C-alpha cells in the first residue's frame, strides 16, 4: 500500500466526507449564529442537514469510484440544502466530479485540479468577486496557495495545509468587508464587522481535507 503515501483513494474521499458531516454537526450553532447577524439564521442548520443526508445516501447507495462519489454528494446537497448554499456547494462537487473522471486515486496535481474545478464552479454559479464577502473570499486565496505549493513541489499534506491556512486568513478578512452579494447585501454598511458564514463553512471544508488527507 505504498501508493497511499502519494495519492488519495476512494476510501480517503469517503473519509473526508464523513469528517465533514461531523464538522458541520459540531459547528451548526456557530454557523447559524454568524448567519443570524447578517442573513437568515439557517446556514448551520442547512449544512448539517445536507452533509448528514450525504452520509445516508452514500451508505444506502455506495458509488463505485471517486467521480461517482462526488456526483452523489452534489445531487444530495442540491436536493437537501436549499437557499444559496445548496446550489453553490452542489456545483462545487459537480465540477469536482468532472475533474476526477477516470481516476482511481488522486495525486497532488489531481487534488489541486479538483479544488480548481470546484471553486471555478462556485464562482460561475454565484457570480461573486473577491471582496464581496462570500465563500469565495476563503476559497480563492486557498486555491492560489495550493497552486503555488504544488508548483513548489509540496506533497498533498503540504498543499492542503497551505490551502487551509489561506482559507482561514481569507475567512477572517471577511469581517471588515461590506457584503455585495446575497441577503447580507441588503444590510449595506450594517454587514461590516461580521464574519461571513459562507466563508466560514468553506474554510471548514478545506481544514477537514487538510486534517483527513495526511497520508
Amino acid at each position, binding site marked *: 500500500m505504498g501508493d497511499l503515501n502519494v495519492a488519495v483513494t476512494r476510501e480517503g474521499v469517503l473519509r473526508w466526507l464523513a469528517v465533514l458531516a461531523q464538522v458541520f454537526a459540531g459547528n451548526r450553532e456557530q454557523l447559524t449564529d454568524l448567519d443570524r447577524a447578517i442573513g437568515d439564521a439557517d446556514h448551520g442548520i442547512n449544512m448539517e442537514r445536507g452533509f448528514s443526508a450525504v452520509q445516508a445516501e452514500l451508505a444506502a447507495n455506495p458509488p463505485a469510484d471517486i467521480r461517482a462519489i462526488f456526483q452523489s454528494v452534489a445531487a444530495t446537497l*442540491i436536493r437537501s440544502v436549499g*437557499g444559496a448554499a445548496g*446550489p453553490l456547494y452542489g456545483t462545487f462537487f459537480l465540477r469536482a466530479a468532472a475533474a476526477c473522471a477516470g481516476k482511481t486515486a488522486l495525486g497532488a496535481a489531481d487534488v489541486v485540479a479538483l479544488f480548481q474545478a470546484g471553486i471555478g464552479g462556485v464562482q460561475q*454559479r454565484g457570480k461573486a468577486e473577491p471582496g464581496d464577502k462570500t465563500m469565495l473570499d476563503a476559497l480563492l486565496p486557498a486555491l492560489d496557495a495550493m497552486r503555488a505549493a504544488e508548483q513548489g513541489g509540496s506533497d498533498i499534506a503540504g498543499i492542503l495545509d497551505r490551502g487551509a491556512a489561506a482559507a482561514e486568513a481569507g475567512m477572517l478578512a471577511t469581517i471588515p468587508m*461590506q457584503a*455585495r452579494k446575497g441577503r447580507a447585501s441588503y444590510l449595506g454598511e450594517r454587514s461590516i464587522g461580521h464574519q461571513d458564514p459562507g466563508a466560514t463553512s468553506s474554510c471548514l471544508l478545506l481544514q477537514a481535507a487538510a486534517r483527513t488527507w495526511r497520508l
Partner: protein
Amino acid sequence: MKKLINDPHDAVRDSLAGLAAAHPAILKVCFDPVYVMRADAPIQGKVAVISGGGSGHEPMHGGFVGRGMLDAACPGQVFTSPTPDQMEAATCAVNGGAGVLHIVKNYTGDIMNFEMAAELCQSRGIEVRSVVVNDDVAVEDSLYTAGRRGVGTTVLAEKICGAAAARGYDLERVAALGRRVVANGRSMGLALSPCTVPAAGKPGFVLGDDEIEMGIGIHGEPGRKRMPLLPARELVAQMAEAILADLPFREGDRVIAMVNGMGGTPLMELYLVYGELDRLLNARHITPTRSLVGNYITSLEMAGCSITLLKTDDELLSLWDDPVLTPALRWGI
C-alpha cells in the same frame, strides 16, 4: 408563538395537503419532490408557466395554479428557496411540448436554484426561459447589492404570462411579455407588526406600539427605515411617491393598481388604503384602470400592506381581463 399548526416542521406539507383537498378540480399536489400542478396538465402545445419560492407568502404561488395562470408552483420551506429537483420534476410534469417559462423572484437562493433547474431541464431537451422579477423600489439597485427584491409585480406577471400562454403565444413571446411586465411594474411595502417563522418560534424583528417598518420585503426582514405610525393617507403618499418617481409613471398613464395585504391586515384597512391610492393617482392624472385588493403575496401573519403599480397598454389589459380559474384569482369563467 400561537399558530394553527400540528408540528412546525410539518406546517408547509400539511398546508399543501389542505390546498389539494380544497381544490381537487383545479390542482393536485405531488409530495416527492414537492410541487403543485394543474389538475389537467400537461396541456399539449401550450407553453407552461411555472413559479416557485419560499412558503409563507400564500396564496402565492400555489394559489395561482389553474386555468389561465400557473401550470405549476414549487413551494420551499418557509421563506427558503425550493430546490432544483422540485422545479425539474414540475417542469417535466407540465411540459406540453411548447417549452416552459420559469417566473423567478430576485433572491440569491431562488436565482441559483432555478438556474440549476433550467440547466437540468435543458439537458433533458425541454426548452426553458426565465423571467426574473425585481420590482421593490425600497432596495437600492446597484452593483453593491444582490439587486432589487421580487415582490408584488410577480402576481401580475404570473396572471399576464398565464393568459398569454393560454392564448397560444409561443415561449419567446410569453417570456418577452413577462419581461415587459417586470420593466413596467414597481412596488413598495410597509409593516405594522413582524411575523414569526414556525420553525424559528420568534419574530424577525420587534416594533414598538407606535412604530412601523417602511420598505419591507416579504421575509419578515427589516425594511428601509423605522418610523412613527402616521395617518394612512400620509403612509400611502410616501409609498406611492417612491413608486411613481422610480419608473417614472407620468400623467396620462394607465395602471393596474394592487393593494396587497401582508397577511394580518383586515380588508377594511386595505380598501381604505386603496381609496387613498385611487385619490392620489387621479390627482396626478394617472388612471387606475384595473384594481386588485386583498392578500396575494403575504408574509405569514405580518400586519401591513404593499402597493404595486403596473403601467399598462391595450395588450396587457386585455391579457389581464382574460379568464382565470385558480384558488385565489378567478374571473371571466
